[in-house]
């Protein structure tokens, strides 16, 4: 169980956590590593908190869900409340700095808590649509599960058909990825 990196990404339905989780594990798999990803899913068609559980390892992965993550990223107030159960003294807990009213909901036993202005940067400097890609960059920078080059080629694989129509989208996504890395580098 030791060399497995465990990540829980959580947000509101539509924030794109499942998409980036999918791209992240795809990137790890393409590197020849073992990856396991399971979305949580309920009976609702839309809305609600959406959690993606990802594990990446050099060996076969055990149970699909885990008790505590190495990294939790929560993108809404409800996501913070829902995912703090996956946090212990070895967990880096990241939330978006736009989330309000969660001061009393922060995990107590935690390795590090970090607020990042991903949503703000997406809106002001890039585009709201690449909010989740900034989050993906942050996740990669904290966990080092794949390198940036691999992450870019996974984005290319997933969104290549859109990039072809509008090459500016490629630049936008890659910038968002790098921005996400910048936001956490040296801070955890």
């Amino acid at each position, binding site marked *: *169980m030791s060399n497995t990196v465990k990540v829980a990404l959580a947000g509101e339905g539509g924030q794109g956590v499942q998409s980036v989780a999918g791209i992240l594990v795809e990137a790890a798999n393409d590197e020849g590593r073992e*990856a*396991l990803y399971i979305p949580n899913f309920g009976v609702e068609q839309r809305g609600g908190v959406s959690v993606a559980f990802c594990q990446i390892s050099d060996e076969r*992965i*055990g*149970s699909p869900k885990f008790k505590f993550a190495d990294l939790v990223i929560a993108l809404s107030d409800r996501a913070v409340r829902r995912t703090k159960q996956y946090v212990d003294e070895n967990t880096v807990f990241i939330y978006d700095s736009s989330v309000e009213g969660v001061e009393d909901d922060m995990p107590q036993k935690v390795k590090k808590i970090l607020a990042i202005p991903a949503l703000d940067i997406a809106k002001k400097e890039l585009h709201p649509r690449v909010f989740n890609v900034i989050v993906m960059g942050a996740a990669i920078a904290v966990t080092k599960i794949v390198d940036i080059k691999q992450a870019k080629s996974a984005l290319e694989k997933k969104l290549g058909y859109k990039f072809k129509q509008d090459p500016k989208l490629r630049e936008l996504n890659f910038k968002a990825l790098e921005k996400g890395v910048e936001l956490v580098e040296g801070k955890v």
Partner: protein
Amino acid sequence: MSEKPIEGEKRVFMTGNEVVAWAALAAEADIMYGYPITPQNEVMHYWTRLAPKYGRSFLQTEDEISAGFTTCGGVLSGKRAFTATAGPGNILMQESMTMAEMMRIPTVLVVQQRGGPSTATVIYSQQEVTMTCFGGNGEGLRIVYSTCSHQELYDYTIKAFNVAWKYRFPVFVLGDGYQAKMRESLKMYDPATKGIKMVETQPSLGLAGVPGVDREPSHLRNTYNTEEELCEVVTNLVEEYNKVVPEVVEYETFETEDAEIVLLGHGIVTRAAQAAVKTLREQGIKVGHFRPITIHPFAADELRAICKQAKKLIVIESAQGQFERIVKEAIYGESVPMESYFKPGQGITGEEIVEYVKKGL
């Protein structure tokens, strides 16, 4: 049209439902009958996308009662037919599956367990064990594989068709919502490259020639008039089933040779149990793990042997004792103490098993 869906062997990364659809294609399944229910839906979705490319068929029925019976009908016409379902759908398929038991119809049913009772959750459980093994008004004359990974979903879906057609008992692949929805890697292959030959199918109805003149009439019955007649028929069925048992029963053990504590778990829970054994052994604790692959029939003799030397068994499952009942029946009379770790409808991690075992030392 009829090129092979998979040439040689290749590593892929996909959901378990997609794996089942590919495995059925590779196993030369002719047709799937189905009705949607979460978390099984994508078996159907992928099958409907893939099947036309390889000349295979699909029929969406009006409900699971019909999906089960049309699967029986497809098999009787000589087609390698299958269906897939979960939860309440599994309940509705029990009637047709008992007909398959009675008439020796080699159906294949993939079950992706969800929470129960009733609608409950669409996520995960191991609460369809009793129903999948013993559901229906009958004696449970069926073979149930409890898989733990995408590799096994692939391997055992292919195997299910062959075991069904070889022995003519209904075969079930018992997965769960986690296996259905998660993505992980596996190796898909053309069965022929592994020396696996698909058992030939034959029609039971509509045969050429005049019945009673050119050939024996095919007399398929599930209705009997007298108690004596039925008792004789069922006794013979049970006898034939029991003959098959030693040939199909499968299990795995992990470090049980000198184990004082033996963890019992099936399906995806085996992954947590295996991880727990590894961690606990590193700490010098003599723990082993026994895992049935065919949860029914069950490797009773092999588990009995383990009971002789173990000091404690711990039954671990995402249900309230459905697996434990099978275990208890299998080792009736053994004196080894038994504990249980039940989480009905919830996943179990290696970490929590480690914690539980250490608390009991």
